[in-house]
Structures are given as C-alpha cells and as structure tokens.
C-alpha cells in the first residue's frame, strides 16, 4: 500500500493529538512487526543454545562431517528467490493485478516447498546414518534450531495457501490485502533468520 493511499483521509493540517488513531494498515503492520521481532528473539535463544552446545558431540559425528554445503547453497538460493517472488507478489497485490499476484505467490509457494523438501531430505539422510536428535547435545540443538525454522516455513506455506484461497473467494478486499502484507513481512523475516542459520550452523561448522 502506498503512502498516498494511507493519507487519503486527509487531516495533515490537524495537530497530531487531534488526528485520532493511526490507519488500520499502520496499526496492523506495526503490531505484526513487533511479533516478528519477538519471534526473532525466540530464534536468538535457540542460536545461543546451538553456539554453546556445538562442540558437545558426545563422540558422535561433528557438523563438518554431516553437512552438505552444496545442498545448503541450493536451499539458500530457493529461500532468497522465494523472498523476491513474495515481494513481487505483494507489489502485484498492491497494484491489484490478479494474474501477476497468482503467478508470484504460487512461485513463492513452489520455492518454499522445494526448500522444505531439501531440508527434510537432509534430516532424513542424517537420521539414516544414526545422527538423530538424540545422538548428542550438538545434534539436539541443531534439530531444534533448524527444525524451528523449517516449522516456520511450513506454517508460512499453510498461511499462503489460505491467502490464495481468500484471494480467490474474497478478492482484493482491504482485509485480504492486510493479511497478504503481513505474510510478506513474515516471509522476509524468515529469510533473515535463515542467513543466521546458514552462516552459523552450516558455514561455521568445524
């Protein structure tokens, strides 16, 4: 939503104290921003646990033996590209372009799904060689941190499917646009958390 729309109700000449509450878009966006920041605080606790336990391998396999950097790079590019398609999708929603909105949002969904598929195949191949979450404190912390991020991506995809349905049944109502806007913030924030994950967990493995 552009700034011009937000100020369409006028009232610039009035002093701030007489202007009443902020537009709903601002209130919803700011509230969701606060939620995202507290979500990132949850991740910071998991990152701290991982950083502390990353050497506690209990004679089990260490990260550098388990992680496949090529796969992680493909995962990273998938998530980054999905962040961009999500942004282009919200631009299409803003311009009320139905076809483009569907194209970009479905592309976001597909890229998110391929990210998740790669992550699950990684977990599967690790568990197949006995490196499950109960093997060592290091692996418990790893599965908790990366798994929580994966759960967020899963939840985001479920949300996106709901939003695509709402776009189909309700169209570009202000309510639907606000929700899609919040979804965009959520998806970009997940990508920011992933930067921390691939830097600290995968590239920092030793």
């Amino acid at each position, binding site marked *: 939503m552009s700034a011009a729309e937000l100020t369409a109700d006028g009232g610039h000449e009035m002093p701030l104290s007489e202007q009443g509450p902020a537009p709903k878009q601002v209130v919803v*966006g700011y509230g969701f*921003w606060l939620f995202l920041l507290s979500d990132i605080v949850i991740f910071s606790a998991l990152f701290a646990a991982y950083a502390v336990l990353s050497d506690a391998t209990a004679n089990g396999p260490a990260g550098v033996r388990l992680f496949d950097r090529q796969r992680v790079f493909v995962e990273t590019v998938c998530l980054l590209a999905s962040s961009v398609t999500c942004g282009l999708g919200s631009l299409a929603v803003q311009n009320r372009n139905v076809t483009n909105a569907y194209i970009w949002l479905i592309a976001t969904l597909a890229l998110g799904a391929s990210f998740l598929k790669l992550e699950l195949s990684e977990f599967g191949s690790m568990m197949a060689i006995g490196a499950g979450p109960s093997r060592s404190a290091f692996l418990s912390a790893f599965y908790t941190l990366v798994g929580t991020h994966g759960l967020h991506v899963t939840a985001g995809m479920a949300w996106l499917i709901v939003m695509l349905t709402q776009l189909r049944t309700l169209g570009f109502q202000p309510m639907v646009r606000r929700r899609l806007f919040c979804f965009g913030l959520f998806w*970009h924030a997940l990508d920011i958390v992933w930067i921390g994950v691939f830097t600290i967990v995968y590239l920092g493995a030793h």
Partner: protein
Amino acid sequence: MSEYPIPQGLAPGVIARRHATWRSYLLGFVAALVLTIASFAAASTNIVYGPSVPLLLGVLAIAQMGIHLIFFLHISSAPDQTNNVLALAFGVFVVGLTVFGSMIIMANLSHMMPTIGRLLEMQR
C-alpha cells in the same frame, strides 16, 4: 511519493514511493546473492586466510541482513519509519544480549570447571 510525512508513521514494509519498487527487489536479490556466494566461497575455498574466515562470515551475514531489511522490508531512516527502527533496535539489543550473554557465561563456566583429573585430585 507522499508530499507530507505521515504523523503516525508508516508500517514496516510499506513503500513510500510507488515507482521503482520491483527494481528494489531485483537489486536486493542480486546484492544478497553476491553476499551469499561470497560467504560460501570464503568458507569452502582457501581464498581467505583461515583464521579470519569466521569474522568475514559474520561481516557478510550482517551485511546481507542489512540488504534484506532495506530492499525487502523497506526499513529506512525516514522520519515516518522512526517507530519501526526503534522497535528493530530493541529487538537487536535483546538478540545480542541473549546470544553473546549466553556465550560469555557458558565459556566462563567451562573455563572455571575443573577437569576430571583435577576433580579426583581434590577428592583425595
């Protein structure tokens, strides 16, 4: 672009300028991709002096987070973004406190912890 600053501020992610926005996503994508490739290259090859790799990775990660905030979440230093930036600053503060606080305390505890041999000696 709006003529007036919005007194109540803008929501995060709201783009004040309507034109040139898809370019912002594309520019962000290219910049983030370059930083990602740089991170993976620094960690997987011998281009960079070994002991300095972790520091470089940290710098590249923080730079990429900045790129995401600016180009994807459209956080800026504009006056109508003050609320968002303040909330972000508090978030970063809590994250830093949690991560670095935990690491310092745990490293300190591990430093103070006597080894098994020392413990057995103390029991005698």
